[in-house]
């Protein structure tokens, strides 16, 4: 990493208010870091209080700083079996990398390491040319990606954590990841002891994995007609009713035809649409508008309807009971942005590409090899290739950290 970046990072930690480093039960967490200019992680550290941690960071400036989601009796023990696991936060990782947004074609590229085939946009799982799986990606973010990630966070909190899991806002900490998304830390005593299997069930719940509408109120009545859940129900029942209502009120005949797999059935539903929607809204609801539609097809409609309300999270992070995750309010070495804690009330207006920028003094000269259009703060530039630029410090550091630019004196 460039000297300029190292100097800037050091300054950041020197002037950082220790209160920014406050995390729940710091003394029980394992701390790990990757020092600037190194590849390997230094693990199994522990600090009794934030002031000691800050001193360490000033002396050993990290490119990346992590803490364990787990609480341990002996967080500094190098033997995982001797650490003495005492529970862990429930973590959700929302990463734009995992969400296929259309803007990826504008700023992401991938290369197959086996046959060197290149492409733009969301990377394929296997190379379309040689079918190998070793794909290297070059990814960037834009406002669109970060906005989608933020919507996922709201969805997770407002539609799942609060109503279904009874989590209160004071126990949820939202952090910008410092790069392409957000981390949610749920810190309640109730959920702390969940096992990997238990956490997987929660991840599957919000991702809708294994979801069967037949267990959530959709069934055949004795007279052969179909009935479904009530909008006023909690949990997946209510979510199904609301989603089907929204879906049917705006889907086109063509879309519906594909979902139900029949022109005739799609026709019946479109003809009955008003009656059907009124029925779903009624108290108690009536699903009589689906008369003549088999349960199998109703299930397909229900599944298509909830696609937009499923959460796009990286489940591997959620199920891990010993995850090392980025330390809140520290710098991300691949962007120079701050992994800022954001309160729920500020989240709506939070602009990561502005509010997480910490380097704001003066400008620096850089030589940019290649980059798509980039915005940092109010300054926007690109797409660009082989150009020399003088840019505000925040943007310069960002390009240097991304490895897209070199420093020019």
């Amino acid at each position, binding site marked *: 990493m460039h000297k300029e970046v190292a100097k800037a990072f050091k300054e950041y930690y020197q002037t950082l208010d220790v209160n920014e480093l406050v995390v729940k039960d710091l003394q029980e967490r394992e701390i790990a870091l990757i020092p600037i200019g190194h590849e390997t992680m230094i693990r199994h550290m522990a600090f009794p209080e934030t002031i000691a941690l800050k001193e360490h960071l000033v002396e050993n400036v990290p490119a990346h700083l992590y803490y364990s989601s787990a609480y341990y009796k002996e967080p500094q023990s190098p033997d995982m079996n001797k650490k003495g696991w005492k529970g862990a936060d429930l973590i959700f990782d929302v990463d734009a990398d995992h969400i296929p947004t259309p803007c990826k074609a504008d700023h992401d590229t991938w290369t197959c390491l*086996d046959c060197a085939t290149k492409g733009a946009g969301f990377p394929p*799982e296997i190379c379309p040319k040689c*079918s*190998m*799986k*070793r794909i290297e990606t070059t990814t960037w973010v834009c406002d669109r990606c970060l906005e989608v990630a933020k919507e996922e966070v709201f969805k997770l909190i407002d539609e799942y954590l609060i*109503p*279904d*899991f*009874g*989590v209160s806002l004071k126990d949820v900490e939202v952090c910008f990841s410092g790069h392409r998304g957000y981390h949610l830390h749920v810190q309640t005593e*109730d*959920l702390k*002891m*969940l*096992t990997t*299997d*238990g956490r*997987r*069930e*929660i991840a*599957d*719940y919000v991702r*809708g*994995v*294994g*979801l*069967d509408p037949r*267990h*959530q*109120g959709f*069934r055949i009545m004795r007279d052969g007609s179909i*009935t*479904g*859940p*009530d909008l006023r*129900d*909690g*949990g*997946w*029942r209510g979510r199904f009713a609301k989603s089907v209502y929204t879906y049917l009120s705006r889907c086109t005949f063509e879309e519906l035809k594909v979902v139900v797999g029949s022109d005739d059935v799609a026709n019946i539903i479109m003809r009955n649409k008003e009656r059907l929607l009124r029925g779903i809204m009624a108290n108690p609801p009536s699903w009589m508008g689906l008369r003549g539609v088999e349960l199998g097809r109703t299930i397909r409609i229900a599944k298509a309807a909830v696609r937009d309300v499923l959460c796009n999270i990286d*489940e*591997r992070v959620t*199920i891990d009971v010993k995850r090392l995750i980025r330390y809140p309010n520290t710098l991300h070495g691949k962007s120079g942005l701050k992994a800022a804690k954001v309160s729920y009330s500020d989240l709506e207006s939070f602009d990561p590409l502005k509010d997480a920028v910490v380097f704001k003094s003066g400008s620096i000269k850089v030589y940019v090899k290649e980059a798509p259009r980039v915005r940092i703060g109010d300054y926007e530039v690109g797409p660009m290739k082989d150009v020399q630029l003088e840019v505000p410090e925040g943007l310069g550091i960002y390009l240097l950290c991304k490895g897209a630019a070199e420093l020019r004196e």
Partner: protein
Amino acid sequence: MLTIDDLAKYPFLRKASSFVESYGLTFQDLVNDEYYYVVQRAVERVKCGIRGRWAELNVVDPETEILSYPLALAFVYGLRQGWVVRRFANSEQKRCFELLKNEDKDKVAEVGKDGFDWDLEGTELMVSGALFDFSLPVENYLEVAPSFHSPDWKLVNRHVTGGRVYLKQVEAARLLSEALKLKILRKAEEEYIKKFQMPERLLSKLEGLEKLVKEIKIYDEDAAVEIIEEAKPPCIVALLKDLADGKSLSHMARFTVTTFLINTGESVENVLKYFSNVADFDEGKARYQVEHIAGLIGSKTKYVPPKCDVLRSFGLCIGGDAYCKKVRHPLQYYKMRAREIKRKKGWEKGA
């Protein structure tokens, strides 16, 4: 309120333990004639377990019923055979389930509280045609439910609201009895239980049970290994095909295939042969890694393949077949099919 009859029905409760403690008995005292029936009842419970039946409730003499339970457990753990513990746990689970299924709601809630610290609450909630009898916190539900295979028990297919999961009584009974089973199984893993020595004066009883164990044991779990190709699950077959085609696999895929082969009894040499077609094959490195996984070097831990859920998360499950629906782990698939294939072959030979 839990009565003495309730404690006889549910002798795993904390209140039942206190009841036993109030007698101030040691295992030595149990040899005295006055406790003859307690020892008899304990032996009977264990025998029922080993034979795969559940011990019917004996309410005529609740004290004997309660006192016999910890002794039965001591016998079971003292026999030091995994399958005996599993069978006993199953029989106690069934007994508990049958009793709880028709129990008063208040009692069920008390069993949850006193036995497992669960905040089980009676309710009468009607939602979209379903009537629920109980609710309990998500975290209590998730202590046990992931061990069930059926999709009905997935959290996503449950009514969950306000941090609570809603259940019918029969489901609450199933969940509680499964919690009991897991408690019995987990305890067997604890160090002090592994070291437990049966007092000498009870050894004669234990020896009697050991005889029965030998009679009943129908198959030898450690029988000589013979690799049965047809018994490999679809996910492993697909990965082996990728290897044969020389494709390079992800870290997780390589780990899965290696642990699977090692655990079905393949030698390190044979495992290396599977990898030899891969473009970036480096025998020295590969041998080190395979030997590590096999527990021959390093931490000496023999690793097992990830279970189906994990393979699914990593995109290594390719959908599976009818057998996959019955299992949760690729090795379980292999063992089940291998047994079936062996049995079939046996018949063919016999015929």
